[in-house]
């Protein structure tokens, strides 16, 4: 019973202690995942979030078994 967590690019470098998974118990939103994984509150305004490979906002719901990712603004192309 866990939620998988991923960090990318500058965020991965800034969160070397970031957890790669958190317990699903009591976790309702993307923001909750951030708090548990980083031991900080509030997802910074610049940070983008995804749930199961889809872009999501911090207030959106997560479920047990989801993959949640945090990353800076994309710079491809």
């Amino acid at each position: 019973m866990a939620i998988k967590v991923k960090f990318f690019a500058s965020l991965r470098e800034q969160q070397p202690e970031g957890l790669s998974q958190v317990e699903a118990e009591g976790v309702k939103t993307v923001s909750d995942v951030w708090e548990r994984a980083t031991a900080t509150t509030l997802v910074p305004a610049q940070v983008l979030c995804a749930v199961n490979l889809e872009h999501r906002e911090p207030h959106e719901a997560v479920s047990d078994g989801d993959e949640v990712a945090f990353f800076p603004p994309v710079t491809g192309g």
Partner: protein
Amino acid sequence: MAIHLHPVPFDPAVELARFEASLPRGSVGATASFVGTMRNHNEGDAVAAMTLEHYPGMTEKQLEAIIQEAREQWDIIDALIVHRTGDILPGNPIVLTAVCSAHRAAAFDACRFLMEALKSRATFWKKETLSSGDTRWVTKNT
């Protein structure tokens, strides 16, 4: 629909030729394409190299969704997105988008849409190595 992520350099001409060869001959009247190439300067600094990180799985899913949206919005025959990942040098192609259609307006519009959507939604991140040896994440996606 075709999406290719390349961890090594690719030749846009080869990719485009392969894409076009897959389409019904005689039906295509217009092909619009765009190639983004790594420059040796950015934000006023000389850049020696770049690394393109991405989110495997999510990148492909986003690119597929972008092509699907283009197909719904314009009368196109097919669309292609090719994107580099990994270590890149100045002069190397980074991205290729191409759209084939019967008439030119749809090809132009959809090709540009692919690039703008990719720039805003596809999960790629560029880290530059400057000529000075310093590294930095690109933060502005102009």
